[in-house]
């Protein structure tokens, strides 16, 4: 059974550009969350979507946006990239049952802004 898959795995962008990151959740999981992890820190929550509706939003600027599609996959968009946006972007999926209510992470997308 496939886990959470993210694409691309690595990305280099220039300041001011826009980026779109993609995520496919574990089969049967209806919730997708996005996290930003900078080197030496734990993941910081950005967004959570459940059944295509935003269920939570972290303390990130409006340059960050996301959406969830009918097949529960998700996109994270970041506009007007800054050097400080360089990080590992993690997608996690979960369900509302038992242990699977906890976050299961993908391998991440490493974004470098130059």
């Amino acid at each position: 059974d496939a886990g959470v898959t993210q694409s691309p795995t690595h990305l280099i962008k220039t300041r001011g550009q826009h980026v779109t990151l993609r995520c496919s959740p574990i089969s049967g999981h209806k919730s997708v969350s996005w996290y930003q992890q900078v080197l030496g820190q734990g993941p910081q929550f950005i967004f959570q979507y459940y059944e295509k509706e935003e269920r939570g939003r972290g303390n990130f600027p409006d340059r960050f946006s996301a959406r969830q599609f009918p097949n529960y996959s998700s996109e994270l968009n970041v506009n007007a990239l800054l050097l400080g946006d360089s990080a590992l972007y993690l997608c996690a999926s979960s369900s509302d049952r038992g242990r699977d209510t906890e976050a299961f992470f993908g391998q991440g997308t490493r974004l470098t802004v130059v």
Partner: protein
Amino acid sequence: QKEVEQDPGPLSVPEGAIVSLNCTYSNSAFQYFMWYRQYSRKGPELLMYTYSSGNKEDGRFTAQVDKSSKYISLFIRDSQPSDSATYLCAMREPGGSYIPTFGRGTSLIVHP
């Protein structure tokens, strides 16, 4: 003060040692406690999941929660070089959106 405090290490131990990793927290509403293992340049992997206080054992791993002290621990017995990774604690309140708060992670190095 951060909601979840975790010493970043690194913690270096010889193979076969018992490892103790810890986190403290300030939010008394936290009821679910998790430990994730993260290898370099990979996503975190859920290792242990505990509800409320007490101990939980899974193979060489034991998770311990002391809610009265707001303190959680992960013990690794007979540590192996393959255990070398960053260990993240995470915790959350019950119900709602199931969004955990993470510690910054402790880097563990197990040398042969």
